[in-house]
C-alpha cells in the first residue's frame, strides 16, 4: 500500500451485515464526506467492503489503516462511527476502549489462514483486489505453462484431499475422471454451509480453482452449486463471475491457450442430502435428489451420464495456492496423511464463535481454548461434535486428539462439512443425539431401507429414552440399528447417520443409563425427566419466577416462599433462569 493513505475496511459478511455493517459503512462514508475529512488530512480515504474474518461474535469489525498501521475496532455500532472519524482519522488518536482486545489476537494467532486469509483483507466485489494479491496468476500458469496431467500431478503430490466428506485424494479423483473416454466432462463446485464465508469473502479463489480443475480434467463446463438461500454468497459469486468473464478468465480461448471453459450457477434448494455427490448431480439435473448407486463413481459416470468431478468450494480454494506456491509448500502444512488446513465453524458454548482455519492435526483442545477462548460462562466443557450432523461426538477426555481425517475416523467421526459444536455440562448428550438424528431423519431422502426406516426407528427409540420410558433393551436395539445403517445404507448420509449415537453411546453410556434406569436427565434438559422445585429456605418470595412462568404454574404470596404446581409446569426453565437466589432447583 502507498505510504500516505487512509483505508477503512468494514466486515460485511453475513454476520457483519446482520450486525448492521452496511449502515456502519454508510456512516463512515457520510462523515468523511460531510466533515470534508479528506481535505483536512490531505489524503484520500478508501473504503473497502471485506468478507468475514471469522470473529463474528464481535461484529461489526472495522479496520482503520492509517499509513500502514492498522487499528481494529470490534462491535462497532453506527453510533460509534462519528467518534472514530473525529478522534482517530482526523485527530490521529485511536480509541483504546473500542479496540479489539486480546481475544481477537488470540483468536487469530493460533490459526493458519491460507484460504481464509484474503477474506477480511480484500474487497470481494472487486476483481482488481484479488488480482493484486496474485489472483489468477496460478490459473494463467496452469493453463499456459502446464499440461493437464502436470496439474493433476502437482495436486496429487500436494496431498490435498476432498474437504467435503470422505476425504478422497483430489488429484486421484481428477485423474480417474481425466482417464475416461468421453469428450464431455463436467466439474462441479459445491458451495456448502461452511463455504459460505469463502464465497462471500474471496469468491474469486473458488472460481480460479474451478477453472484450474476444469483445465486439468478437460471439462468444458463447470457448475457452481449453491443454495439459493445464501443470497449474499450468490450475489458475490455472480459479481465475481461476471468480472472474471469480462477479464477473459472465463469463456473462450482463456489466456490465449485455446482452452474454453464456462461456469454456470446451479441453484440448489434446502436439502442436506444434496451434499452427497450423486444426489447433488440429480438435483442439478432437476430431479429428486436421490443418490445413485456406486459404482460407477461420478468421476466415471456423473452428471448427465458424463465423467464428473465434484469438489467442495474449500477444496477448490486450495487449488490456486497449490499451483502458485507448489506442492511441497502445501504438503509442509498438516500431518503425514492430511495435508493443508481445514476450515471449521466453531459454534456452541465457546466464548468466541466464528470461522476458524487450522492446520490439519491441531489438537481439539487448542481450538476450543485458545481460539475459542474457552467455554462461555465459565462452565465445564462436556463434548465437541465435529463434522456436522452426521459427525461424531468427542468427549472432553479425548480433547487432546489432533484434527485430521485419520484421527477423526478413528473416533467414529468425520471431517464432513466442518461443523464444530461445543457442548457444556448444561447440555444433555442424549437430547443432543436425538436432535441430530431427528435432523438426519428429516433429511433422509427415503430411497434405501436402512436409512428410511432405520433413522425413524432410531429417533423413536431416542425419544422414548428422553421421555423416560426407555428400557435397557432399547440400547441393544439402537446398537443393532446402527450396525445395519452403517454397513448397508446406499449413500454416505445413511452410513454416517448413526455416528452421533455410536460415539455418544460409547463415551456417555452413563448418561444413557441414567435416563433409562434412574429416569433422570443429569444435565436437566429432557423435560419429561426434570422437575423444577422451589427450595423454601432460599426463596424470599420476590415473585420474579411467578411473573416469568408462562404456564401460571408458580403460585405464592409476595415475601413468602413460592410453590410450583407440577401438573401445570411445562418445564421450560424460565423460573430457574430468572431466580437470582438460586432458590429453584432442577432434578
Amino acid at each position, binding site marked *: 500500500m502507498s505510504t500516505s493513505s487512509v483505508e477503512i475496511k468494514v466486515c460485511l459478511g453475513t454476520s457483519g451485515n446482520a450486525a448492521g455493517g452496511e449502515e456502519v459503512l454508510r456512516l463512515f462514508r457520510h462523515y468523511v464526506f460531510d466533515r470534508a475529512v479528506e481535505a483536512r488530512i490531505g489524503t484520500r480515504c478508501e473504503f473497502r467492503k471485506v468478507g468475514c474474518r471469522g470473529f463474528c461474535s464481535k461484529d461489526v469489525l472495522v479496520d482503520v489503516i492509517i499509513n500502514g498501521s492498522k487499528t481494529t475496532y470490534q462491535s462497532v455500532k453506527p453510533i460509534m462511527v462519528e467518534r472514530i472519524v473525529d478522534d482517530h482519522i482526523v485527530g490521529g488518536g485511536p480509541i483504546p476502549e473500542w479496540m479489539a482486545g486480546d481475544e481477537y489476537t488470540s483468536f487469530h494467532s493460533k490459526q493458519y489462514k491460507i484460504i481464509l486469509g484474503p477474506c477480511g483483507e480484500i474487497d470481494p466485489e472487486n476483481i482488481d483486489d484479488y488480482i493484486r494479491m496474485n489472483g489468477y496468476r496460478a490459473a494463467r500458469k496452469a493453463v499456459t505453462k502446464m499440461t493437464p496431467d502436470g496439474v493433476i500431478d502437482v495436486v496429487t503430490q500436494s496431498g490435498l484431499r476432498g474437504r467435503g466428506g470422505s476425504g478422497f485424494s483430489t488429484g486421484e479423483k481428477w485423474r480417474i475422471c481425466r482417464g475416461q473416454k468421453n469428450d464431455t466432462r463436467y466439474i462441479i463446485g459445491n458451495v456448502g454451509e461452511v463455504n459460505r464465508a469463502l464465497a462471500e469473502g474471496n469468491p474469486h479463489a473458488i472460481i480460479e480453482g474451478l477453472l484450474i480443475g476444469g483445465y486439468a480434467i478437460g471439462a468444458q463446463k463447470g457448475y457452481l452449486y449453491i443454495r439459493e438461500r445464501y443470497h449474499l454468497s450468490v450475489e458475490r459469486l455472480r459479481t465475481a463471475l461476471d468480472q472474471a468473464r469480462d477479464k477473459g478468465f472465463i469463456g473462450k480461448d482463456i489466456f490465449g491457450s485455446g482452452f474454453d471453459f464456462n461456469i454456470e450457477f446451479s441453484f440448489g434448494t434446502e436439502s442436506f442430502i444434496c451434499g452427497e455427490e450423486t444426489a447433488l448431480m440429480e438435483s442439478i439435473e432437476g430431479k429428486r435428489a436421490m443418490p445413485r*448407486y456406486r459404482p460407477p463413481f461420478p468421476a466415471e459416470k456423473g452428471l448427465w451420464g458424463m465423467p464428473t468431478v465434484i469438489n467442495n468450494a474449500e477444496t477448490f480454494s486450495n487449488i490456486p495456492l497449490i499451483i502458485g506456491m507448489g506442492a511441497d509448500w502445501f504438503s509442509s502444512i498438516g500431518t503425514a496423511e492430511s495435508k493443508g488446513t481445514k476450515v471449521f465453524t466453531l459454534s456452541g458454548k465457546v466464548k468466541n464463535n466464528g470461522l476458524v482455519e487450522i492446520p490439519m492435526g491441531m489438537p481439539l483442545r487448542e481450538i476450543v481454548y485458545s481460539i475459542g477462548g474457552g467455554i462461555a460462562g465459565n462452565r465445564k466443557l462436556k463434548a465437541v461434535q465435529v463434522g456436522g450432523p452426521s459427525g461424531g461426538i468427542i468427549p472432553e477426555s479425548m480433547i487432546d486428539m489432533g484434527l485430521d481425517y485419520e484421527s477423526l475416523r478413528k473416533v467414529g467421526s468425520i471431517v464432513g462439512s466442518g461443523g464444530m459444536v461445543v457442548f457444556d455440562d448444561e447440555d444433555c448428550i442424549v437430547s443432543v443425539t436425538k436432535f441430530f438424528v431427528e435432523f438426519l431423519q428429516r*433429511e433422509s*431422502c427415503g430411497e434405501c431401507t436402512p436409512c*428410511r426406516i432405520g433413522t*425413524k*426407528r432410531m429417533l423413536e427409540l431416542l425419544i422414548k429414552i428422553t421421555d423416560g420410558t426407555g428400557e435397557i433393551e432399547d440400547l441393544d436395539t439402537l446398537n443393532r440399528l446402527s450396525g445395519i445403517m452403517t454397513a448397508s445404507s446406499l449413500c454416505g448420509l445413511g452410513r454416517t447417520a448413526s455416528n452421533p449415537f455410536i460415539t455418544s453411546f460409547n463415551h456417555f453410556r452413563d448418561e444413557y443409563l441414567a435416563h433409562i434406569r434412574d429416569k433422570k436427565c443429569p444435565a436437566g434438559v429432557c423435560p419429561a425427566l426434570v422437575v423444577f422445585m422451589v427450595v423454601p429456605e432460599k426463596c424470599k418470595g420476590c415473585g420474579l419466577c411467578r411473573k416469568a412462568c408462562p404456564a401460571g404454574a408458580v403460585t405464592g404470596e409476595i415475601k413468602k416462599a413460592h410453590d410450583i404446581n407440577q401438573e401445570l409446569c411445562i418445564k421450560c426453565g424460565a423460573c430457574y433462569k430468572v431466580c437470582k437466589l438460586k432458590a429453584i432447583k432442577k432434578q
Partner: protein
Amino acid sequence: MEKPINSISLVIDGKQISVPSGTTILDAAKQVGITIPALCYHPKVSRSGACRVCIVEVGGTLVTACTTPVSGGMEVITNSPYVENMRRDLIDLILSDHPYDCMVCQKTGECELQELAYKYSIRNPVFRGERRQYAQKDGNPFIDRDMEKCILCGRCVKICDEVQGVGAIDFAYKGFWAKVCPPFEQDLNCEFCGQCVMVCPTGALIGKNWVARGRYWNMREVESTCPYCGVGCTLSLHVKENEIVRVTAKEGRGVNDGLLCVKGRFGYQFVSSPDRLKTPLIRRRKGGDLEPATWDEALGVVASRLKRVKEQYGPDAIAGLSSARCTTEDNYLFQKFMRAAVGTNNVDHCARL
C-alpha cells in the same frame, strides 16, 4: 450399452465362474444356481439398489449384488452369517413399517416380502414403531393401491416410466413419509395396463377385481391367447371352480413377455357373463325376435342371402369389414373369400382407421 468383450472369472460361494464383463453379481450368481433375494431388482427395469436386501459380502464389506458389476478375482460370499443376519434385520426393518395382515392380504402366498419373512422366520420383530397410515384410498376402477404395504422398491414407478412410457406415478415426499403416488395424490388416472401390479413384490398393488376371489394356490392356471386384438398376447388365466378370477401373463411366454394391456389384464369378466352369446341368432320372421340357431343354419342363411344380393345387384354391392380381434390368418382368409368367392374388392379392416 457396453458390449461384453472379455470374460471375467470370479468365485461365488466357492464356485468358480466366468461371465462377460459388465455382468452384475446377482446375474452371475444366478448362472451358478445361487439365488440372491432382492426386492427392488426386476429384470425389466433399471436398477436402483434401494432395498439393500441383495447385499453380499465382498472382501469384508457389503455391496448390493444387483448393482455391483463383477471384477476379476472377486470373491463373493452370499450366505455368510454376517450377510444373513444383516438381511434378516433389513427384512425386519421393512416389516416394522408394514401392516401385519397377511391372513387377509390378497397377495399371501405370492408375496416376495412374505417369502423372505418366512425364510428368515421373523416371528417377533426386533424393530417396532410408527407405521405409515393413509386414510385416503384410491378410487380408480381397476387397481387397489394400498400404500401402507408399499416398501418403496420403485419397480412400479420404473415399469410405468421405462416400459410403458406413461409415468402415471412417481415417488413423492421424502424420508420415512416417501410415497409412490399419482400427481397431487389424485386417484390414479392412467391407461391401467396393470404393469405396476405385475411387478409389485407386496400386496401394495392388487387388481380390484381379484380381491377375495380366491387364493393363489386354489387356482388352476390355463394358458390362452388374448382375444381382444390381433397382437395375440399370451395370457395365463387363473381359473377357480371353472371361472376366470384373474388374468396374468408369464414372463418369457409369447410376444408380450409378461406385459398386458388393460383389456387383457382386467377385462375378462365377459367370459362368464350371462349376457354372452353362445349360439348364432336368426330373425326368422320379419318383426320377430332373434332366435337361437345352429351354426349350419346360420351360415346357410348368410350364404343364401349373399348369393341373392350378388345375383340381383352384382358383387360390388357387397362389402366386407373384418376385425382386428381376428388373427392374421383369419383376416387373410376373409379378404380371399371376399375377392375370390364374392368377387369384390370391397374389403376393409377396422385397424386401418
